[in-house]
């Protein structure tokens, strides 16, 4: 009986290959961000004044980015609600929550893009020094990940609209949720580190 149960457990795979793949991908992503944060720590601690004197007049938009952070955190909540909806077979709610999450992600990118345009206008560019370089590389790297998550989510929304998911088969939603939650959870760390350092 126990041997049969063990066989069933092996067949059902409590930790699916797709989920394991995403988790390993996130491990690699973590190492990428750790490297960038490490570089930030060296540059930040190497300078007594931050921003450096060459960029003393530049103020990062903390308030707008704070509101943007709130939007991204809400998107994490709606994504979590989406997976709860599919777990209890509420397909209509799944679609609504997924679309809402995607819109919030896009809004985050649009607001951040508009901030960048203002900062470039003030003279903070990638070539203007270590401050600009580490800011754009670190925040830009996260923005690319949000963009990737939005593209992934768009595919998942398309699949949800044609009814590809059910309460017993929702790996697509699950893996996308893991990635989305990761991107959302990473942002507050970067926000407080870069904008309040």
């Amino acid at each position, binding site marked *: 009986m126990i041997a049969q149960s063990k066989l069933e457990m092996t067949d059902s795979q409590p930790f699916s290959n797709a989920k394991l793949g995403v988790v390993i991908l996130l491990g690699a992503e973590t190492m990428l961000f*750790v490297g960038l944060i490490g570089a930030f720590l060296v540059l930040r601690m190497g300078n007594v004044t931050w921003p450096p004197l060459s960029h003393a007049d530049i103020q990062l938009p903390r308030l707008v980015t704070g509101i943007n952070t709130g939007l991204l955190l809400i998107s994490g909540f709606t994504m979590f609600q989406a997976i709860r909806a599919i777990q209890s077979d509420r397909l209509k709610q799944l679609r609504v929550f997924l679309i809402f999450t995607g819109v919030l992600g896009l809004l985050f990118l649009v607001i951040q893009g508009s901030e960048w345009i203002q900062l470039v206008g003030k003279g903070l560019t990638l070539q203007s020094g270590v401050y600009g370089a580490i800011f754009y590389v670190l925040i830009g790297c996260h923005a690319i990940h949000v963009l990737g998550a939005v593209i992934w989510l768009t595919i998942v929304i398309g699949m949800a609209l044609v009814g590809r998911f059910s309460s017993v088969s929702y790996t697509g939603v699950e893996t996308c949720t893991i990635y989305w939650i990761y991107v959302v959870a990473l942002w507050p760390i970067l926000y407080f580190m870069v904008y309040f350092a």
Partner: protein
Amino acid sequence: MSIKIVLWVLILGIVISFLPQTLDACPACKNLDEPIARGFNISVLFMMAMPFTVFGAIGGSVFYYYRRANKQIKT
């Protein structure tokens, strides 16, 4: 007796002569009180801790899911 003492002094002298005087291997470590050196130190420690954290988290979560599934099957 005196030969023993001479031998011990000789061994001690050889050991002392092999002790490193300064850490010249790393150009960033000459003055650890400098802000840039402290930055490097913290950054290195942070990056060193991360592989263990990441692999621990992945391994831990896989272990947790399998253990939970195993418990569900037994009950």
